[in-house]
C-alpha cells in the first residue's frame, strides 16, 4: 500500500475547511478569513505537489492508494480503490485549480448574503475539482465529477445575478446538461468495468486492448465522450455555458471557466485518447471539425454580445475549440505522432484557465462598481480606473494570443502540431486569432476608452485585497508567456506516453 498523503491533503483540505466553517465558525468575517487561509494552504500544497513531481522520472507519482476502499461484493470483486496520483498531465491542472481556488475566495470578499454558506459551497467545489484531476480510479473520478455539480448549482442559484428566475434557470440548465452528460459517462464506465474487471485508470488502457468489450469500442468511446463534450463544451452542447457563466457570481464564473471546462478537456486526454487510441484516431477528423466550429462560431457570436460576461463566456467557447484542434493531432503523419499538438492543447487548457479567470474577475469588478454589464452603457472607465483598465488590457491581449503572454505559446504549439495533418482546418482556426483581436479590442475600446460618462464620475479603481487576485493571475499569465517551459515541460512529459501509444497504433495501421 502506497500512501504519500499529499494529494489527499490537497483534495480534502477544502472540504475539511468547509466542515469547520459549518460546525465551528459562527461569524461571517471569521468564515471568510478561514476560507482564505484554507485556500492559501491548499494553493501552497498544490505548488508543492507540482514542484515535487519529477518530470524526468515521469509516470504517476505521489500515489495515495487504499486498495480495498469499498470491499468487493461477492466473488466478482466489485472492489473500488481509493487511488489518487498525478502525472505530467494533471500536475499543472492541480496547480491551476489551487491558484484559481485562492483567486475565487479573494474575489468573494464583498459577498454579504449568507456568507458562511457561500464559502462552504465554494470550498466543497474546490474538493470536487481537485478530486477529478487527481483520482485514478474511474468510480472515484466519477464521484468527484458529480460532487462538483452540487456546490456550483447552489452558487449560481443563490448568489447569481438578478433576476431570481433567470439565475435559477441558468443553474438548472447547467445541472441538467452536466447530469445528462454524466449519465452517458456512467454507462461507459460500467461497460468498461464489466468488460475488464477494473476501475483502475492506470491499468485500463492495457486492459481494454486485451479485453472483449461488451459494446463496440466506438460506442463506449462515444458514451464517455459525450460527458466530456458537454463540459468542454463542444458545439452544439455549449448553450448552458453562456447562461451559467453570465449568471454565476464572479467567483463562480472564474471557477467555471477556469477549471470546470478543463475537466472536459482533461477527460478527453485521460480517457478518450489514452484508453481508446484507435477510436480517437478514427475520430480525429471529428475533433478537427468540432474545433473549427467552436473557434469560428464562438468568435462570431461573441461579436454580437452586449452583456460583458456573456461576451467573455462565448470567447471561452471559441478558445476551448483550440484544445480540440490540438487533440486532432492524435492521428499523426506517416506513423509518427508528435507531442507538439497535444502539449499545445494541454497548455491551452492551463492558459485559458488563467486568462479567462482574470477576464471574469475583472468584469465582475467592473459590474460591482458600475452596476451594469450592458456594454453600450459603459465607456471611458480607464480615466477613473487605470489599474483595472491595464489589467483588462493584459488579460485581453493574452486572450488574443499576444506573444509574451501564455496565450501565444499554447496557440503556437497547437498550430504547429496540427497543421501537418489538418492544414485547412488549422488555417481556418488560426483565423480565429484575428477575430479574437477584433472582439477583444473592440470591447476594451467600448468599455474603457473614449470620454468617461457622467454617471461614472465618482467610480473608483480597485483597492485593498482586490489587487491580490489580479496580480496573481497577471503574474501567472506573463510568467508562463515568458518562461513557458516550466509548465510545458511537465505537460510534455505527461502527453509523451499518450503519444507513444498512439504512435504504436498508427504504425500498426501502416503495416
Amino acid at each position: 500500500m502506497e500512501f504519500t498523503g499529499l494529494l489527499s491533503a490537497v483534495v480534502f483540505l477544502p472540504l475539511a475547511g468547509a466542515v469547520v466553517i459549518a460546525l465551528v465558525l459562527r461569524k461571517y468575517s471569521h468564515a471568510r478569513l478561514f476560507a482564505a487561509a484554507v485556500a492559501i494552504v491548499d494553493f501552497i500544497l498544490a505548488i508543492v505537489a507540482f514542484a515535487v513531481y519529477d518530470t524526468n522520472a515521469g509516470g504517476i507519482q505521489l500515489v495515495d492508494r487504499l486498495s480495498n476502499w469499498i470491499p468487493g461484493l461477492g466473488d466478482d470483486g466489485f472492489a473500488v480503490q481509493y487511488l489518487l496520483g498525478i502525472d505530467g498531465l494533471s500536475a499543472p491542472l492541480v496547480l491551476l485549480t489551487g491558484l484559481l481556488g485562492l483567486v475565487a475566495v479573494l474575489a468573494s470578499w464583498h459577498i454579504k448574503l449568507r456568507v458562511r454558506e457561500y464559502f462552504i459551497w465554494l470550498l466543497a467545489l474546490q474538493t470536487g475539482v481537485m478530486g477529478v484531476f487527481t483520482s485514478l480510479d474511474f468510480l472515484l473520478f466519477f464521484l468527484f465529477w458529480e460532487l462538483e455539480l452540487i456546490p456550483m448549482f447552489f452558487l449560481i442559484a443563490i448568489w447569481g445575478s438578478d433576476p431570481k428566475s433567470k439565475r435559477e434557470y441558468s443553474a438548472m440548465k447547467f445541472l441538467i446538461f452536466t447530469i445528462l452528460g454524466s449519465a452517458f459517462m456512467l454507462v461507459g464506465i460500467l461497460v468498461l468495468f464489466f468488460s475488464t474487471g477494473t476501475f483502475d485508470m492506470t491499468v485500463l488502457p492495457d486492459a481494454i486492448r486485451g479485453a472483449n468489450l461488451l459494446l463496440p469500442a466506438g460506442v463506449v468511446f462515444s458514451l464517455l465522450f459525450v460527458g466530456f463534450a458537454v463540459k468542454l463544451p463542444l458545439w452544439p452542447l455549449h448553450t448552458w455555458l453562456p447562461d451559467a457563466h453570465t449568471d454565476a457570481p464572479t467567483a463562480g464564473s472564474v471557477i467555471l471557466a477556469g477549471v470546470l471546462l478543463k475537466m472536459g478537456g482533461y477527460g478527453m486526454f485521460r480517457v478518450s485518447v489514452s484508453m481508446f487510441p484507435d477510436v480517437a484516431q478514427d475520430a480525429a477528423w471529428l475533433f478537427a471539425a468540432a474545433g473549427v466550429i467552436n473557434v469560428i462560431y464562438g468568435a462570431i457570436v461573441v461579436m454580437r454580445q452586449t452583456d460583458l460576461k456573456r461576451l467573455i463566456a462565448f470567447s471561452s467557447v471559441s478558445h476551448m475549440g483550440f484544445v480540440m484542434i490540438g487533440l486532432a493531432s492524435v492521428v499523426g503523419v506517416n506513423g509518427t505522432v508528435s507531442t507538439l499538438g497535444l502539449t499545445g492543447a494541454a497548455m491551452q487548457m492551463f492558459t485559458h484557465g488563467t486568462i479567462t479567470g482574470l477576464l471574469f474577475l475583472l468584469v465582475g469588478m467592473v459590474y460591482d462598481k458600475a452596476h451594469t454589464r450592458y456594454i453600450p452603457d459603459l465607456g471611458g472607465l480607464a480615466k477613473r480606473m487605470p489599474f483595472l483598465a491595464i489589467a483588462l488590457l493584459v488579460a485581453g491581449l493574452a486572450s488574443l494570443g499576444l506573444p509574451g503572454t501564455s496565450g501565444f505559446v499554447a496557440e503556437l504549439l497547437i498550430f504547429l502540431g496540427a497543421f501537418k495533418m489538418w492544414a485547412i482546418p488549422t488555417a481556418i482556426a488560426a483565423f480565429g486569432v484575428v477575430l479574437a483581436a477584433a472582439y477583444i479590442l473592440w470591447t476594451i475600446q467600448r468599455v474603457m476608452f473614449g470620454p468617461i460618462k457622467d454617471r461614472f464620475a465618482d467610480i473608483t479603481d480597485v483597492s485593498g485585497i482586490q489587487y491580490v487576485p489580479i496580480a496573481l493571475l497577471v503574474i501567472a499569465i506573463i510568467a508562463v508567456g515568458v518562461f513557458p517551459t516550466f509548465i510545458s515541460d511537465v505537460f510534455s512529459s505527461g502527453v509523451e506516453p499518450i503519444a507513444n501509444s498512439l504512435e504504436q497504433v498508427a504504425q500498426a495501421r501502416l503495416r
Partner: protein
Amino acid sequence: MPEVAAWLILFLPLASFALISLVIRPIRGAESQTAAYVTIMAIGLTFALSIWALVSTVSAHGESHYPVHTWISAGEFEFAVGILMDPLTAIMLVVVSGVSLMVQIYSVGYMHGDSGYARYFAYMSLFTSAMLGLILANNLIQMFVFWELVGLGSYLLIGFWFDRPAAAAAAKKAFIITRFADFGFLLGILFLFFNGDAFAAQGLNVFVVTDIYKGVELGLLTIGVAQWVALGIFAGAMGKSAQFPLHTWLPDAMEGPTPVSALIHAATMVAAGVFLVARFFPVFELSLVAMNTVAIIGGITAIFAASMGLVMNDIKRVLAYSTVSQLGYMMLALGTGAYGAAIFHLFTHAFFKALLFLGSGSVNHATGTFDMRYMGGLRTAMPWTYITFIIGSLSLAGIVPLAGFWSKDEILTHAFNRGVNGDTISMVVFLLALIAAFMTAFYMFRAVFMTFHGNFKGGAERDPDAHAEHPVHLEESPKSMTLPLIILAVPAIVAGFLANSIFDLGVIPGHWMSHFLDYIPSVHVETAVFSVGIAALSSVVALLGMGMAYLMYIRRVISPEDMPNALRPVHTLLYRKYFMDELYETVVVRHVFYSGICYALDWVDKSIVDKIVNFCGWLGANTGTAIRQVQTGQMQAYGMGISVGILIIFAIFLFLG
C-alpha cells in the same frame, strides 16, 4: 561583440519600460521627469551599443556566431532563441536606436505637461525594445514574437490619448488590420514548418534564418513552397508597412502624439515590413510570382498613396501618405531585385522622414493645429524648424545631393535597367515610381508653402478641430525640440552621399553599404551603376513638381481654390481616400460582417440551437406530466393494468410458441 552586449541592446529599453511602469510611475507620479531621463539613458546606451555592433560587424566582414537558448520544448520539438548579427541587423540597429534617441530627446519638450508623461516614456521604451528585438532575432518565430510586440507598442501609442474616441478607434484599427495581415505571416510560418522535413534531414532548423539561407542554397525549398512561404511573409509585411490595400490604418495612426508618428509610423515600425522581406529575400528570389507581387504592390502603393497626399490639408496626413508611398518605393525595389537600393532608401528615409514629422510637431507646438489651412508664414517665427523642414523636404523630393536623391535614384536606375532589358514589370513600376516622384515633390512643397510662407492664418484659434490647450503664440520650439531637428538634418543631407557613395571618399569606400550588405550569405547585392540620364530625369521631374507647387501656392498663377473645383470628382475621390475606409468599415465590417454574418449566427445560436435544447427539456418535462396521469393511486387501476399486461405477454408467448 560579446553576446551579453548584443542582448543588452534589446534589454536596456525593456528594463527602462519595467522600471518606469513598476517603480517610477507608482512612486514618482504620472508626470515624473525621471521617466524621460531613464528612457533617454537606456536608449542612449543602446545607441552606443548599436554603433559598436555596426563597427564589429564591419570588421568581422558580416560574420558572427552566437549561441542559442531553449525557450519552448515539447517532446523532440525544441525551439531556441538567439541573435543574428549580420550587416542588415547592424544597419537597422543604428537606424532604429539613433532615430529613437532623437525622438525621446524631442519628446521631453513636446510631451511636457501631459498627464500621461511617464506612461508615454514607458510605452516608447517598450516599443523600441520590441523593434530592436525584431531586428536581432535569429529565427522566424522569434521575429514573429517581436513583430507582434511591435504591433502592441504601436497600439498603445496610437491610443495614447485613449479618452479621445478617434485615437481609441485608430489604435484598434491599426492593430486589427496588421493582425489580419499577420494571419498570412502565420500561415507562411506554418507552411514552411510543414515542409521542414528536408531541412531536418540536413541537420538544419527550418526556422533559423541562416539555416533557411543554407537550405535555399542546397535547393531544399521547391519553387512552389518558396512561393507560398514568401507570399505569406509578404502579407505580414504589407500590414506593417501599410501597403495597398492594407494601408488605411496608417493615416489614422496620426491620432497618436507626433513624436510617435515620427518614430513608429515613419522611421521604424513601418519599415519593419521592408526589413522582413529583405530578411527572407533569398526565399523571395526563388519565386518569380512572389517577386513580381512585391514589385507590383510596391509600385501601386507608391503612386496610390502619393496621389492622396496631394490633397490632404492635415500636415501629418500628408507626411503619412508620403510614408506609405516611400515604403512602396522600397518594396518595389525589393521586388525588382534591388536589395541594396531598398535598404539604402530605408536608411535615408528614416532620417529625413523622422525629421519632417518632428518638424510638423514643432509647428503644431506653436500653432496648436495640424491643419495647414490655418498655418502660413511661420518661417520668420520658427527659423530652425523652417530650415530643417526645407532640408527634409528637399531630401524627400530627391534633390541632388541630399540623402533622398541617392537612394531614390538607385531604385529608379535599377528598375529602369531591368525594364530596358525586357522585364515589363520593372518598366511599369519604374514609370509608376517616376510619376510618384513628381507627386512627392509637389505635395512636399505644397506643405512647405502652406505652412511656412504667406501670412499666418490663426492656428488653433481658427481651427474648430484642434485640441489646443494653450493660446496660440508663435515662437520657436524649445531647444530640446530643435536640437533633434538639427541633428537629424545632418544625415538627411549627407547620409546618402556618405553611406553609399558612387565613388570612393577617402576612408569610406564607394558603394560602402552595398558592399557591406553583400557580406550576407545568399544575398547578392548589385552595386548600381550611376546613370546620369536617370539622375537628370528624376531631378527634372522633382523640380517640375516643386515648380508647380510654387506656381500654385506662392505665385498663385493657378489658384489652389479653383483647381479642386475644376477637377471636382478627382479631388473628391482623392480627398475621400478612394472611399476605401467606407468600403472596409461601412460595407465589409459593418454591413456584411457585423449585421450579416454575426447577426445570422447569433440568431441561429439563440433561436435554433438553444431552442432545440430547451425543447428537449420541455419534451422531457411534459412527457413526465403526461405519464403521470396514469399514476392515479387507485389500486384497481394498477391491478387492471398488471392483468392486461400479463395477458398480453402470455398472448405473445402463445403465438410465438
